[in-house]
């Protein structure tokens, strides 16, 4: 056995040798103009209002290009695939294979999506004088001197760009008079042509190693956006024997492309030392999620799971304009239309019996789907992801033991990567990893704050890999409005919403729930309600008979 191992190792080293000589393989992508979002027609650093379907003409290259009403924008995000440590509700530190943010660091630490417009993503990390900045291992937790207790939000760190991004010294021809225009003291003043996606790998390794988060970085995009999602595989420093690839699977994407589907058996997987940019036009609005698809029973149990949702174009309808009319306008583009008699997978036909000019867009708040009747309106939204961790399996994953799958048994039951009472600790939670640095491994609290008289949208997904999980609401009834990223509506346009006090999800499922606290007599300011699991053995943190899958709902 040992001889074989040595032979394999030798072979591996031989295979790696030519790689070392290669150009660097880390890079990011975030174009500022594309065929679909030409900067000549629209500034891609903001979402334009939705007033009409995009119009197209066939360009000289033989494909359609937009001529007016460009909708959506360009969004970019970078994540690192590697490992990390997080802290369970009973204080146990647990080892994870995990993704961590390599862009949107400040937003992620503040509990927000790390998905950025090009102007934010393409900015270079600098100090206050504009000179090139240097990340510290563990950042942003190290720079803000994070503690293991509650950390204040917003954190004292504002950079949201792509970690490692620098002007490419080889990008432009070297000017004999001025020298290299891409080598300047203030990198953010370099000409646009200097930004080719070239990165400094030192920054990526400094920030990316032991940087794992649970859940993985939050992704939020708007319908009609193009998403450039870069996975950078920094390796698992505590398991150097594994040389594992990682991928991103966009779970539930309709009409997915197999190339960008992240299934290593059916596509490409990303080796250590490489970056790969997944490219999608945003699918229909809804609550999706994402995860690594390498050896799923292992990598998902170990923590490579994250949240993703797509906001509807209905949000971008100007306040006071008719949502019904906006949905009618969407029928003008075959990509955004939904005709039940023509497409059996169409989920949001025009609302039954509704008429023109109905359902004005509210001045505040947003919508979960393109409902055309305003019925999915909410004031605040919370992504909630359910996980289960089996500490025995994680120990095996940290060490060098053969894995057992059939007797996997979760002992930690997590909402957004935390067990009660950590679920209601505000701000990011930091864990000191084996590199001696604090890392914001659990950035997302799951405390639900609803303004008095308001409605909260819960985007609930489950990526437990072992069993079904139930989440109940003690107090405010749950109104289920969406299921598996689709509006609950029949083909004739009747809403099929239903009220319940609990929802049950298997791994790989999601649904949308509205907690309607608009009755301030029943739900007055200052009251506290609970979301908890009636799988009573899941209200525990391993040996602690208290905790687990539970959080609080506060009426503010």
């Amino acid at each position: 056995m040992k001889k074989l191992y040595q032979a394999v190792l030798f072979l591996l080293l031989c295979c790696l040798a030519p790689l070392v000589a290669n150009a660097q393989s880390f890079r990011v992508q975030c174009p500022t103009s594309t065929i679909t979002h030409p900067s000549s027609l629209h500034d891609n650093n903001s979402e334009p209002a939705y007033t009409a379907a995009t119009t197209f003409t066939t360009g000289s290259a033989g494909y359609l290009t937009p001529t007016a009403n460009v909708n959506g924008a360009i969004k970019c995000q970078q994540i690192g695939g590697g490992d990390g440590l997080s802290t369970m509700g009973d204080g146990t530190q647990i080892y994870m294979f995990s993704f961590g943010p390599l862009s949107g660091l400040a937003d992620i630490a503040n509990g927000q999506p790390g998905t950025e417009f090009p102007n934010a993503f393409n900015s270079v990390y600098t100090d206050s004088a504009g000179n090139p900045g240097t990340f510290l291992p563990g950042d942003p937790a190290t720079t803000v001197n994070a503690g293991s207790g509650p950390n204040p939000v917003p954190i004292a760190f504002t950079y949201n760009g792509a970690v490692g991004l620098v002007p490419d010294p080889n990008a432009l021809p070297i000017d004999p008079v001025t020298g290299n225009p891409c080598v300047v003291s203030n990198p953010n003043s370099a000409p646009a042509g200097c930004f080719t996606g070239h990165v400094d790998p030192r920054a990526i390794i400094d920030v990316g190693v032991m940087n794992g988060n649970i859940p993985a970085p939050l992704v939020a995009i708007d319908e009609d956006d193009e998403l450039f999602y870069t996975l950078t595989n920094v390796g698992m420093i505590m398991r150097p024997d594994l040389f594992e690839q990682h991928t991103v699977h966009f779970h539930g994407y309709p009409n997915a492309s197999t190339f960008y589907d992240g299934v290593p058996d059916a596509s490409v997987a990303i080796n250590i030392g490489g970056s790969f940019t997944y490219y999608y036009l945003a699918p229909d609005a809804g609550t999706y999620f994402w995860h690594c698809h390498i050896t799923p029973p292992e990598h998902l149990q170990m923590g490579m799971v994250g949240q993703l949702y797509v906001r509807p174009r209905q949000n971008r309808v100007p306040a006071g304009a008719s949502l019904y009319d906006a949905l009618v306008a969407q029928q003008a583009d075959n990509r955004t239309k939904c005709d039940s008699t023509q497409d059996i997978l169409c989920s949001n036909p025009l609302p039954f019996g509704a008429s023109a000019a109905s359902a004005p867009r509210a001045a505040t708040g947003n919508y979960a789907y393109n409902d055309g009747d305003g019925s999915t309106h909410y004031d605040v939204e919370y992504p909630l992801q359910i996980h289960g961790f089996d500490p025995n399996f994680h120990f095996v994953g940290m060490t060098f033991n053969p894995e057992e799958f059939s007797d996997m048994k979760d002992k930690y039951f997590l909402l957004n990567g935390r067990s009660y009472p950590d679920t209601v600790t505000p701000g990011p939670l930091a864990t000191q990893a084996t590199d001696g640095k604090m890392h914001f491994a659990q950035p997302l609290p799951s405390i639900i704050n609803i303004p008095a008289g308001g409605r909260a949208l819960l985007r609930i997904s489950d990526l437990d890999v072992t069993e079904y999980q139930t989440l109940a609401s003690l107090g405010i009834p749950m109104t289920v409005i969406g299921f598996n990223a689709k509006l609950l509506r029949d083909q004739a346009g009747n809403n099929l919403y239903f009220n319940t006090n609990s929802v049950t999800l298997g791994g790989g499922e999601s649904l949308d729930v509205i907690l309607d606290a608009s009755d301030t007599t029943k739900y007055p300011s200052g009251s506290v309600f609970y979301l908890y699991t009636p799988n009573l053995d899941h209200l525990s943190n391993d040996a602690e008979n208290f905790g687990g899958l539970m959080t609080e709902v506060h009426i503010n």
Partner: protein
Amino acid sequence: MKAMKMNTTISKTRLLLLLVLALLLTATTHAAAPGITGPIFNLTAQAAFISQPDGAAVYSWGYGCDLSAPQPVFAPQLTTTPFCYAMQVPGPTLIVHENDTVTVKLLNGLPAAAGNTSILFPGFNVNATGGVAGLLTQEAAPGGTVTYTFTASSPGTRAYYSGTQGDLQVEMGLYGAIIVLPASVPANCTSGLHAANLAAEAHWSESDFRLAPAAYDHPDTCYDREYLFQFSEMDPKIHTAALAQITDIATCVPTQSRLTCPTTLEVPTEPYQPAYFLINGRSMPDDMDPNYAAQYPHQPYNGNPHMHPGELTLIRVIGQGRWQHPFHEHGNHVRILARDGNLILSGSTITYPGAAAQALAGRLEFTTDTTPGQAFDGIFYWSGKGLNWDPYGHHPGSSDASAKLSCTPDANGYNTAAPTAINFWEWCQDHNKPMQVAPFGDVAGGGPATLPDANILTNGAWYGGSPYLGPNATLRATGCMPTGAAQTNAPNCGATGSTPPSGTIANPPSSEAGFAFMWHSHNEREITTNNIFPGGMLMMMLVDSREFVIDESN
């Protein structure tokens, strides 16, 4: 300890090698929903060993065909080498028509110690004759028979399974499916796009493997292709204990130390710890071998779905075990049509092409729960709509005629007027739209995405070799035409740009180059076979370019 990890790595590799070998040895054959037609069925319940990809032969019980009765008629009709032996898991799929009077005669051929057995047909009003009285229905005593008669009152997919000591007998494999085809087919299911689809099949010499053009008497239940998947799990401890006790009962002789011999089974079915997770009685990768493959005499049905873009694919799914499984279909959502043969309908009527009818009200799901004893029918399709790049890699500047096809959108945006074209059902809004920034091979540049150096990527066995669909696009994208063919895209042939070359075998770039999607249990520990990954409840679904012939003949 490191060597231990190597063990699992090697077993994974070995499994993959076996899989690749298996794929090499077998012709490309796919699934459909094979079974036997009625309305009179002569079944038997017997014991046999079923095979698992870890090498285990698991003692099981299953329904099969009574070999003393006339040979059954198999469906679909083009199935070439069907068999129905005396025992199979799942049991024979019973295919009947709405309003048929169905007669199922069951002969109990199980070992005497197993006791009585029976069949339940939930959803039908069953009249049982003969046999002996049991708790839920009339049962067949060892060596005896019982006859069940019922009217196939409504169309759809339903489960049948043992009604005798179900915790043991269903676990041992006594379950199957019954499919009722609608008495009449809505007119729109045989005209318009469905007729165009048949024209496309005829053009490519592809056969029609459907059992019917519609799942129900409803204009929105038409389909172009169909598959049946039965999910179950097995705890090998139960099977081992059953065999040990059966053997003991059969061979026991009273002695001084053992004064009496047992006569009935006392197999514990709790605590339940399944290690095998099956689709149609097989674990991955065996499930992707052909139907009626000779190496699985007791597991004739596979799970190997294929489809072309735009085809409405009916999936008939049954939960046959005691657990629920979240079955995740990569690639798109599934419209749930019905549960246990009950169409889920709205109170409102809408006008489908050619006919008004009550609207469908079943959910759209990307993860469909299988529930013990419950069946659902659902419609899935994949069209590539909304990718924002041309998956066929069309390139107007090419010298290859197939790279310069036209795309004429119908009212919904698809290229459906040309059934004989490779890009039949292409989503026209993205026609000719490039994906890659830099041109490569015979695929145009100017798109949004930069592909990395191929050296940092690892290709999977089902990777078609390029981001593009079909052999024509894939060969153009990888820069070369097949050996012997004219290099129409010189001088790019032989270049090794950003698209990794692929030596994959499961989905060859030069002949299939389909888009492969994993369909699997999302309780991910269930995609293992007795603790070995990959395995279990997992199969690959391939979306094949129109030029690839999907052959479901066995």
